């Protein structure tokens, strides 16, 4: 019989066992972080990206088109449509989720849907109101600009007419001067020839002098007019420059309005996101009275990290207050803040959240 396989040593089994454990350790270390990063990013961040990106894209396209008023309307409609779509998507998502968890939390879902509906309606009304305001402002500004432009055109016309008259006057004066010079030469020749003519010439010269003085006066008046015209021109140019500045200012303001509107939209979605995240993280303690409501003022850092969450207005139930603060802390890094426009970021680094048990599950 084969004697060599009589005894089995422990060396090979030991090596195999250690190798197995090392392999399992390495596999777990490599796989764990990857798997953990996925779930939190899918729920919240994706939703933000969808809503803000669509609105900003539309706004940019409108800016490029330069047809601000029309574009703004279109944009508003589009934004409204996008919002509706968003809402519809959300609703569809909610319906799906509800279908999945129907038997589990029917009542909760209804409440949630109601809350979401309310939130959406509020957001739509807000957007509509803001859009109306922006439109009104824009219309007023346009009216002003129109009036200014008409006034300018009138002034321009006047100025042109004046310039024409001036030119005619100059031509006449020139012709006059030439004629006078000729007359003088004639007179001289006549004075040389005839003494009698001299007197006439003197008289004539007298007349001429008077004429000249008159011409001089005229010329001075003309110069004066010229100076006036130049001053007017300058004034006009200054006015024009001012007008242009105003126009630019108007445009800038329109931009600002558009940006602000965009920012408010993004911020609205940001606030909604924050609210949703906080809602998800909120564990309502038992035995809370129905009417309890607490207000938590939240301060965020520049990258969305939580600086402070304090009770602004207590509900009177300390457990409830603590649960609200804890919900904010649990939902804390609001990284979506960085996706807001820079101007809006500063505004939304501090906000209040109101907690009411009726609102959320």
């Amino acid at each position, binding site marked *: 019989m084969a004697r060599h396989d009589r005894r089995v040593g422990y060396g090979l089994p030991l090596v195999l066992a250690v190798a197995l454990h090392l392999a399992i350790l390495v596999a777990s270390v490599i796989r764990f972080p990857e798997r953990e990063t996925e779930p939190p990013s899918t729920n919240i961040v994706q939703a933000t990206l969808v809503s803000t990106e669509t609105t900003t894209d539309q706004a940019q396209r409108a800016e490029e088109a330069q047809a601000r008023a029309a574009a703004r309307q279109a944009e508003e409609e589009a934004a409204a449509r996008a919002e509706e779509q968003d809402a519809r998507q959300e609703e569809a998502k909610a319906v799906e989720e509800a279908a999945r968890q129907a038997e589990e939390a029917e009542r909760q879902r209804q409440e949630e849907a109601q809350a979401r509906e309310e939130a959406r309606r509020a957001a739509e009304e807000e957007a509509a109101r803001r859009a109306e305001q922006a439109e009104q402002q824009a219309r007023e500004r346009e009216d002003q600009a129109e009036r200014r432009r008409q006034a300018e055109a009138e002034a321009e016309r006047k100025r042109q007419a004046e310039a024409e008259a001036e030119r005619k006057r100059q031509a006449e004066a020139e012709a006059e001067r030439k004629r006078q010079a000729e007359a003088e030469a004639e007179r001289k020749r006549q004075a040389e020839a005839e003494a009698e003519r001299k007197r006439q010439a003197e008289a004539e010269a007298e007349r001429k002098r008077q004429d000249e003085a008159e011409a001089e006066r005229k010329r001075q008046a003309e110069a004066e007019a010229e100076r006036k015209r130049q001053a007017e021109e300058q004034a006009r140019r200054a006015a024009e420059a001012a007008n242009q500045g105003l126009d630019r200012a108007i445009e800038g303001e329109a931009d600002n309005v558009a940006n602000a509107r965009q920012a408010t939209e993004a911020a609205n979605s940001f606030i909604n996101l924050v609210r949703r995240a906080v809602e998800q993280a909120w564990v309502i303690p038992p035995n809370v009275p129905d009417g309890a409501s607490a207000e938590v003022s939240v301060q965020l850092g520049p990258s969305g990290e939580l600086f402070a969450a304090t009770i602004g207005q207590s509900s009177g139930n300390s457990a409830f207050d603590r649960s609200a603060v*804890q919900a904010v802390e649990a939902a804390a890094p609001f990284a979506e803040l960085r996706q807001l426009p820079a101007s809006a970021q500063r505004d939304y680094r501090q906000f209040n959240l109101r907690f009411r048990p009726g609102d959320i599950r």
Partner: protein
Amino acid sequence: MNDSLSLPHLIMNASGVVQVVMLILVIASILSWVVIFQRTFVMRRARKAHRAFEDRFWSGVDLNELYRETPAEQETQGAEHVFRAGFREFNRLLAKTRSPQAILEGVQRSMRVAWSREEDRLSLHLVFLATVASASPYIGLFGTVWGIMGSFQSLSMAQQATLATVAPWIAEALIATAMGLFAAIPAVIFYNRLSAESGRLLGKYEDFAEEFHSILHRNLQGRTDPGAD
């Protein structure tokens, strides 16, 4: 958050007791796997050796020749060991006594001793597997309970109890249970498998012993009958 919940980070930051528990469980797991591999190899070779020996035994070879072919007593194993012990006892008793009854009894006894040695050899360390299988979940549970105790103690010191302060503690505590189960599950599975295999092998040895006994009995009948007549 992600980084602080990674597996090595959690293990490194665990409290002393939990770390000791984890170390014990890792050692238990490694040792149980050593036993699993070693026993698997032993069983496979024993099965192969038994099959080869049975082929040789039933090939019609002379028993004396077969006995001479097999090596010394301590190095044989399995059915070979049983055969060798029985046949040696048979030869020794054959020279000393005439009573077939006494010879067969002596042969049976020596074969039973050899069989029991084989049983001891085959089920060696299987008890360790059984111990790991039954004890390591409890050890892991102890580590978990201890870790959760620690987490609640730290909670009592904190002003506000958030999930973030409790989560690492509980995750770290639960790792101990996970490791206990990780050590116990293969131990249970392979204990059952290996003990069933050893039982089957021992049954085969027993069958062989009975067959050999009947052969010797037949031999004795043939030898003593003419002498008695």
